[in-house]
């Protein structure tokens, strides 16, 4: 009967419905005998039954007031969930996009600057890139071109647009208050622009809950940018770093949240 013991494959076929009905009946008889080996298997293997089982177990207990949570905890959750929230009004993004387009034309200068300042091999791998932003005021259609270093309200959100001169892997990172958040990752297969988006929709980054200097760094490279590259941020910002395939270019904007 050992062939009837639960295995990952048996569980998978049982749950997906691929199991033969006769084998299902044998398995049911086997499990009804409270097989210790199968119990040990289930004990050691996280599986898709975990959610349903915990949901069923949760219905047995008496309600516990202690576990209800509070406003403070939810505020922390909300702040993180809304870090990158899709626009709720499509027209707003169209206006933001139009506003951002006003600033075209500076990328050539950025690329030239980079090549002049970087080592030759790295310069070809680190993709010249430009990060721009608009400030989205809450509760209105007011939009304003963002200028690095400006003061902004904690009620506002920031919309970002990225421009690259060659195909590139991109990462947008926030640094502030000792935190380091990766806000956005993308691969742009051709030179051009991309709007920071969430779930396929243009997104704005809410500043609520943040205070003080917030730096937003765009990393761009011809090769994939790994976590170690992001962790290396902090030194040499604005100049690019890395070697060989890992050479990364950086553009940066910053705001002071009040």
């Amino acid at each position, binding site marked *: 009967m050992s062939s009837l013991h639960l295995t990952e494959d048996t569980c998978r076929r049982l749950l997906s419905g691929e199991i033969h009905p006769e084998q299902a009946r044998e398995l049911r008889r086997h499990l009804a005998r409270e097989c210790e080996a199968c119990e040990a298997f289930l004990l050691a293997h996280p599986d898709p039954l975990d959610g349903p089982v*915990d949901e069923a177990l949760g219905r047995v207990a008496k309600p516990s007031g202690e576990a209800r949570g509070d406003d403070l905890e939810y505020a922390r959750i909300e702040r993180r969930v809304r870090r990158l929230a899709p626009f709720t009004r499509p027209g707003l993004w169209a206006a933001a996009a139009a506003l951002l387009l006003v600033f075209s034309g500076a990328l050539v200068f950025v690329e030239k600057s980079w090549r002049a300042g970087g080592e030759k091999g790295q310069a070809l791998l680190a993709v010249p890139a430009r990060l721009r932003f608009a400030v989205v005021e809450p509760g209105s259609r007011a939009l304003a071109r963002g200028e690095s270093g400006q003061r902004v309200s904690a009620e506002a959100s920031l919309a970002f647009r990225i421009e690259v001169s060659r195909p590139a892997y991109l990462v947008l990172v926030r640094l502030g208050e000792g935190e380091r958040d990766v806000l956005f990752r993308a691969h742009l297969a051709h030179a051009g622009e991309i709007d920071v988006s969430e779930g396929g929709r243009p997104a704005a980054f809410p500043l609520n809950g943040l205070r003080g200097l917030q730096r937003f760094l765009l990393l761009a490279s011809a090769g994939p940018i790994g976590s170690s590259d992001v962790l290396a941020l902090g030194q040499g910002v604005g100049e690019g770093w890395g070697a060989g395939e890992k050479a990364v270019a950086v553009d940066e904007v910053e705001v002071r949240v009040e």
Partner: protein
Amino acid sequence: MAHDRANRARAPSPDGADEVQLVARAAEGDGAAQRALYERYRPAVSRVARSFAELDPDDVADVVQESFVRALRNLRGLKNQERFGRWILAIARNRALTLLARHRAAHEVLEKLKQVAGHAEPFLERLDLGVEAEHELVRRTIAELAEGPEKETVRLFYVEGGLSAREIAERLGVGKSAITMRLERFRAKVKMKLLAEVAKLRGDESN
């Protein structure tokens, strides 16, 4: 009594919307709906974390926060919105096990989790014995436990519900890992009965 509890689990949310509507609104960024989901599922998510006695209160808070952040951020990807409850509980368990693995330095647990993570939702969609049947299955599993420390632990945690596994360990004067193991063993028994029910359904499909 059992019927009342089962109904309570599917009762309308605090703002009166049903589960699917609530999740749909939350997925569209409705703050009130997201808060309602938090209010509704916070106790169950916390319970999953509190079943691991090795996790301290800070760890439990981490599990709760991370679970809701991940769930609310990824709501648009949830295909079956009426399964939100079991989905976020699975997220919570994964997070709790991640923290536990850090405590135990047992990386193989994480590897197992990664293997099943990508398949969880399709399987979940096919698993629905009904609230009443699942509740009865849990109640029966508790009733069949032999009188002793394991049953007492299960009673304190899953029936009385007021104590965390860590607090139960202190009350019973037993090591934290022993309490975690008792609760996990009980969950494995429930899982086994649930699988037997699924096997029954699969076996009946050809009749």
